């Protein structure tokens, strides 16, 4: 029997201690917001927080985190309120397919928790473990920057290329 604190809830499960946390979350706890992307700590899709720090759930044996606090994307927001980063993700229209974005948001949240005002290079380095095959790195960077700078995250079409450059040809 292994005990974990997942999103502030104590859960006890009969699972082998070498089972990766990723599959415990997805297949046992049905918390499917945490994604499988590579299984070898290369892509960041499975990023969750262990006591507030970002870890790769795909290579974390559940036995090694027994009794510890795990936060997943589902546990990030309090109630219905999205976190500023999640709001910034909407404001900057970050996701394309969206599959990598749980991991991106978990990594970015951990970054800002440890370093509330990172430099651009610090953002780039901290986020390099998260692949986005849709290539939304520029938008992810801007969204993190906006939160770090304390910008209010509101969708503003005027700032998003709404100006129509009509040229009759």
């Amino acid at each position, binding site marked *: 029997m292994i005990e974990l604190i997942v999103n502030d809830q104590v859960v006890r499960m009969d699972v082998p201690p070498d089972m990766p946390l990723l599959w415990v979350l997805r297949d046992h706890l049905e918390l499917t917001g945490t994604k499988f992307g590579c299984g070898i700590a290369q892509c960041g899709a499975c990023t969750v927080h262990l006591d507030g720090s970002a870890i790769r759930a795909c290579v974390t044996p559940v036995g090694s985190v027994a009794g510890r606090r795990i936060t997943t994307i589902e546990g990030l927001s309090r109630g219905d309120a999205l976190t500023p980063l999640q709001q910034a993700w909407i404001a900057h229209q970050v996701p*394309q397919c969206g599959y990598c974005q*749980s991991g991106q948001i978990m990594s970015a949240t951990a970054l800002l928790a440890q370093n509330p005002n990172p430099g651009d290079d610090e953002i780039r380095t901290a986020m390099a473990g998260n692949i986005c095959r849709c290539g939304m790195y520029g938008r992810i960077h801007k969204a993190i920057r906006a939160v770090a700078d304390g910008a209010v995250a509101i969708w503003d079409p005027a700032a998003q290329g709404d100006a*129509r450059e009509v040229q009759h040809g």
Partner: protein
Amino acid sequence: MGKWTRRAFITTGVLGGGALLVGVGLRMGNRNEELAPLVAGRGEQLVNAWVKIGQDNAVVAIIPQCEMGQGAQTALAQMLADELDARWEDVSFMEAPAEDAYANWSMAKGYALAGVNIPPILEGSVNGLLFQATKAMHLQTTGGSLSVRSTGVYGMRVAGAAAREMLLAAAADAWQVDSAELDARQGRIAHRASNREAPFAEFAAAAGRLSPNAAPTLKRPEDFKLMGRSKPRLDIPAKVDGSLVFAIDATVNGMKHAAIKAAPVFGARVAAMEDKAARQMAGVVDVVNLDDAVAVVADNYWLAEQALKSVRVTWSETDNDDRSSEGIFKQFAADMERDRAGGTSTEDLARGDAQAVIGNADNVIRRSYRVPWLAHTCMEPMNALARVTASGCEVWTGSQNPLGFKHAVAEALELEPERVAIHQHMMGGGFGRRSRPDVAIQAARLARATNLPVKLIWSREEDVRHDFYRPAVLSEFRAVLDERGNPLAWENQFVDKHEPVEAPHIPYDVPNQYVHFTDSPTHVPFGAWRSVDHSQHGFFTESFIDELAYEAGRDPYEYRRDLLAHLPRHRAVLDKAAQAAGWDQPLGEGRGRGISLQQSFGTIVAEVVEVTVADGDLTVDRVVVAVDAGFAVSPDGLKAQMESGVIYGLTAALYGEISIENGAVKQGNFHDYGALRMDRAPVIETHIINSMEHWGGAGEPGTPGSAPALANAIYAASGIRIRELPISRYELVPNRA
């Protein structure tokens, strides 16, 4: 403007409860040749878009395109709502269901059962062409960057405009006024003279009984209210809190999990299998031999994977067991040489007499380029959940072609297609890979073999090793310059021609051109990879024209520009990119700029890439994109697609290589099939030109120009000419995945 309305027909019906339903049939400019005779011969067309207006004034756009991240569904809903003059807040969309296949008569039948009156014109299509076309083509494909340029222009706008006209006519009738005195605005109809106003819903039922105008008037661009504006994408909120259910997240009661290993060498089969250890593991349900693959079905995915590792499989020998990348490229070269010597290649394009000019010239510039196979590596690994019962088979998956999947699964299980249901999910990337039904078929076979619902997930290694790859290509050029340095003759021979047919053709004004190809088949499965053949030929032709510019001692931007006098749109796009990039501003030591121009899927894109090459380390600093897609329905959406396409193309150019060793793919995961990451990603700026010419696609056209612009920039910065991809072969790229 009448051009496309003649190609469409419109039909209406009243849904139970008095909602108006308007459908549009259209003849798609489909690139699939099999379909053309069916459509052309019968004067019948494909039902393609629907709009429903409910009594609560809610507007539902029913969209036949799948969402793989490109934002197509939001853009399509915008097009429909604008023509309808709906209030954006009232608009939602649903994806056309695949089990009652859209563009298929069973969908129409479904509506008929719900009380829709199908007019005779639709019945003909429904029972005749649609059924045939569906059977022949299983057509519900998302690809070819078609969403906006085909479904949107020919379907969604017409449906919206027709519905608007009918609502106005019904209101005119109800109020006993001339419809010319009425305005539609924000989901309401107003009578100017009397200030009388009512919501659309009030007239929905009456409108549904009117005959639709076969050619409704579409808005002029200056009247667009939603088109051309960046609207927040409707699918994004569910993508920031983990709540979106991708197919990999789907569950059904009693579901088991499967892991799979397919024969490493394409074409090999299971010769022998030792699975005793796996079967003895607690929680393992079954080990299934699928002929060309072995799968373990278990209580959870991790267990299935662990058990699979203990299964010993002997694979059959094949003729390809000794094939390697180098051997295949040698085969390409030998086949091309043979064709050249014997004059046996296939002509692709001929203008003037390039061979004679080259044959008589003293100074012929020859270059050879090659690109490797590429995998798609969608972020969401391949997966499908299937359940087989006495009544049929259900599959939960993300597909670029749900209707095709339905038929493929039906064929594999020898079921009537009506007994297969595809539950479509939003995709964690598609890029062409999810147009292939292989994983859905495997899941269905496992579900039938075990009599249990089974969710099959491919490991990333399976995904990398069993893709339908972007084909490897060898491409050779010969050119002769005139006294001013402009190309007088251009000859290009390459291996294997696929789609789109125009991919190898250059826009530049060269009087003598000869493009030809040599068939040189390999055992490596191939398929569509974002931008299809443009991704290879864009690199070849835009690298070679760059080399010619340097040979002529000319500026590569000016050189291209001079050869585009006959194509003002192309020239304007090229100019825009060059200006925005500050082409004439010198860069410091070790830095350089490269430019490219490529038209694909109806959209013209120019890219300027800026790099730094210092101490053997390459940095891609900045990419400036200029794009003319005719009209940007959602400017921010188009920009996002350009950013995405550029990163996809740069990733492949820098790191992308699938190589063949002993008949099998060598790479397996992101550590050896690398992806561009944020620490090395450039800043990307996109500049949109709305030429108002033919509307083009968005999902693919950003990709082909990035590799050549990058290679050209590296040359400008370092004098190193990249003629083989990926660039990591040149030891400019530190080999971190």
